[in-house]
């Protein structure tokens, strides 16, 4: 399989041009295999932990707000722009031809603005670090992997507001999105926009090649991530999370079952956003990695 494409530049020097679109298929297949594999694993092999009823906690309200209106709006707008970007980027590659460039860069700008808003919102109105992995989470990750390898019952550890898998996914998506956005903004100088006429000599040809490669790699990476994300969003045991991203709340039982009240202390977040999910990008919709 070809991964990168090179071509001789006007002086006959081989320069990077972009990723080979074989990678798109690889990404899609990887996403598909993950979905199938995970499904089979959960269905056939995963040890079932006995479900223990949580202790009653009448101080917890009937419905716990997990995602504020603002966070949900952000999430779904971002989802729409992300899907638009992926469709406009990859449908032409697989042979569905349409005028995609303008839609693509406009969607890219919308996504960029949404993320800027999100960063501001998360750092002013939310616990910015609640969705990031730290040393503690890395320790948890090792423990989880250890348990998986020992095939110990995967009793779900109750977590803080964002469990480890969501945090990891958020981080990955943050990184990759950052990659597509930065490279995408640079690529805007290669097209005519409302703001400027294209100037392809803004960067050297080899730098352009790198930019296109990074953009392409991040783009196909997102394909895999989005497949996985949607898969978990529709898995039965995660639907409560998906519902929370639509309606905003989880039930008291769900709260007590999945969260450690010591780690997600209700009513301690900054006013107005105490229960907001607001996690970056699409991470907060649901769990990701099999526990």
């Amino acid at each position: 399989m070809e991964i990168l494409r090179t071509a001789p530049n006007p002086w006959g020097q081989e320069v990077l041009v972009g990723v080979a679109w074989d990678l798109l298929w690889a990404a899609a297949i990887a996403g598909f295999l993950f979905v199938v594999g995970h499904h089979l694993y959960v269905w056939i092999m995963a040890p079932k932990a006995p479900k223990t009823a949580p202790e009653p906690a009448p101080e917890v309200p009937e419905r716990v707000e997990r995602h504020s209106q603002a966070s949900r709006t952000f999430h779904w707008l971002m989802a729409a722009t992300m899907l638009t970007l992926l469709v406009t980027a990859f449908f032409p590659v697989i042979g569905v031809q349409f005028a995609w460039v303008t839609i693509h860069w406009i969607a890219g700008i919308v996504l960029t603005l949404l993320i800027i808003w999100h960063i501001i919102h998360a750092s002013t109105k939310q616990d910015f670090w609640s969705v990031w992995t730290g040393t503690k989470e890395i320790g948890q990750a090792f423990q989880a992997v250890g348990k998986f390898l020992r095939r110990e019952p995967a009793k779900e550890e109750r977590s803080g507001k964002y469990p480890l898998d969501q945090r990891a996914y958020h981080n990955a998506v943050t990184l990759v999105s950052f990659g597509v956005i930065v490279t995408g903004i640079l690529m805007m100088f290669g097209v005519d926009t409302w703001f400027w006429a294209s100037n392809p000599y803004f960067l050297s040809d080899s730098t352009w090649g790198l930019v296109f490669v990074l953009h392409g790699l991040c783009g196909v990476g997102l394909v895999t991530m989005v497949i996985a994300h949607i898969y978990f969003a529709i898995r039965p045991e995660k639907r409560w999370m998906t519902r929370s991203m639509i309606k905003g709340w989880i039930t008291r039982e769900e709260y007590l079952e999945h969260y450690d009240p010591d780690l997600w202390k209700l009513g301690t977040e900054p006013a107005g956003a105490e229960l907001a999910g607001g996690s970056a990008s699409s991470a907060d919709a649901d769990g990701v990695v099999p526990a």
Partner: protein
Amino acid sequence: MALIGQDISPPDLRAKVTGRAKYAEDFRAEGMVFAKLLLSPMPHARVRSVDASRALAMPGVLGILRASEVNQPEAPGEAALTDEPKYVGEPILALAAVDETTAADAIEAIDIDLEPLPFAIDPLDSLRPGGPDARLDGNVMRFGDSGRELVSLKWPQTEFDAAEAEGRLPMGEPTDEWDHGDLDAAFAEADYVLEDTIVHQSLTHHPMEPRSSMAYWEDGRCYLYGSTQSTQRAHQAMASQLDLEPGELVFVGQYCGGGFGSKIAGVPIYQVTALLARKIQRPVMMRINRYEENYIGRARPGFQAWTKMGFRRDGKITGIDLYIIQDHGPYGRSGDYNTAGAVTDLMYQPDAMRFRGLTLYTNTPPRSAQRAPGGAQIVAMLEPLVDKAARELGIDRVEIRKINAPTHDSEFGPGRATTTSAFVREAIEAGAEQFDWAGKQALSGQRNGTKVTGVGVGLSPYVGGSSGFDGLLLIRPDGKLYIHQGIGNLGTHSMADTARAAADELGLEWDDCAVIWGDSSQHHPYSSVQAGSQTIHAHTRANYAAALDMKRKLQEVAAAALGGSASAYRVEGARVTGPGGSLSFAQAAERAIAMGGEYSGQELPEDINDYTRASATQLAGQGLMGVARDNFSHEGSTWSWVVGFAVVELDTETGDVRIVDYTGSADCGIVVHPRSLAAQIHGGSVQGFGQARSQKWVFDPKWGVPFAHRLYTARPPGILDVPLSMDWAAAGEPDPQTPIGAKGIGEPPVGAGSAAVTSAIADALDGRCLCRVPLTTDVILAELEGRAQPHALTEIHS
């Protein structure tokens, strides 16, 4: 004169029209293989490494030739192959294989690592402070106290700023400067002064036949088949380039599919076939394709120029100030810009003139002379300005040219040279009459729908002859006169036409003459290069000189055989007849062989060139030999003139231009061959039409890569760009400084065609001069529509 002045069929005609004529790539040799070139993809680079192992391992690949194996001349000379290519398309190495397909595949299999170096495409970029130099040793050549030197010349930013503010060409320190008269006084005296910046493009020669060649070695001798304008000189030059004695090289170049100055003598790339053939011990053919020809086939230098011209109310030009920056390419030193200065001074005869200029090395294909080098550019640039003045002063445009034209004793140029003759007014008058200038003038500005008619006139002088070469004739016992011609055969017929001087002097019919040409093993005399329109002048003289020598010998042979005094014998009707009776030329030849000595070439004149001596020695004893150096007087420089008259129709809505009528009229001394003269005037003028209208170079400035490297992108004119009606005339006055009276005519038609068209276009635009060549549709339409010009003021490769 029986033959001179008549239309005759040149001896190569039948072979050409039947396809039997062999051009360089038609030759074959036992075991012949093919070579291909690896060309530089970069405008300036250094070869860091070449790995040809994969290529050499391919079946059928026989070897490569690197720069280190060819003659590397001293800077700024050009080698056939180089490890420091200085323009895109410069040959780096050559590879031989059993066929071209294999050779091309093998070239692709060569791994070459090039280090890009700074490059300059526009001369002005190179002159800016900190600007790139096209060569590692500088951007100009200057003649200092210690001789010639290559230096990096930069002009101060202030000059560029001032030029930009004033909307003119930047003009810093030149390398060449001359003047005469009091320029300030001349401008002060002028009633009308104009000042303009003018740009002229570079143009590839693009002869139909590219510079293909074939070579093999036999018994230590190299046999080289190539296309050349000048056989004898090519033989000498190639021997020198290959470090061989002339006797070690046989050079064959019988037919030449055009040269236009690009194949004057030695062609560096021919070394490659010869050296590869020696290296791999196989005959090697290298067919140069159009793409390669575009790069290595030479080009006319472009000019970025500025002029100021002063006119008196009566049309007399008082002063000219001319500045030319020449775009040179990376090698050698073309003198076009200097010639342009001299041409300007000659043709306008200003009371005072200053010329300043310099030629900049650029990373563009090498330049060489192209049909009226320097002259064709400058007349196309200046003639519309003279029109502008004529219009301003209310003087007829033909009249203003006559007013300023030189006379026989006019002086010009830095050395205040004189000409042998100047029948300029006569040529103008003959042309104006033929063209019906008075009648056609009435068409000027006439509108027909969206089309407006423009009428133009362009005057174009160029050097028309040299002297001092040798003639070599032999009457063999078959009674025929063998005229050995070292000049080439590039379609101008001069190989045949100059032979007529000998035939006429010896009173022979054309059928009794055989012209020997195009093969150094056939023994040529030392000859002029067939360039600069020298041959008709130089070799009618040389052949005439040899004919006089032969005539004397015929008389003496007859007198010796038949008795009586030699001077009593007459040479006529292929016989020498006198008081003792008559000898046929066949008999005379046999007698001469018997007599030996000078009669059969055993003894040769002292003053002939060593090359002629060697040839004559080879022919000695085979007949009655006439051999002599042209020692006729030749005072002043010989210049020919063509004045072109054109009618164009310019569409005011599209900028499209159609040339509908054209007449060229020459002062070329006496007319040797009317049909050939017409071909020269028309052919050259058509080349000029392309120069004026469509043909040019285009380079991407960022990468230094050219685009006009195919015929269709270079856009030389096609048959539909030529008017249906083309006429010609000639003053027909013999030049007094040459016994035959003929001057060369190859060069000036180009400038005449180009200038007449630029002048006619300006006329169609109500006298607005666009100061750019070529005047393409976009340039004209932008002017008509009052929109920004598509090319910046000094942009030269756009």
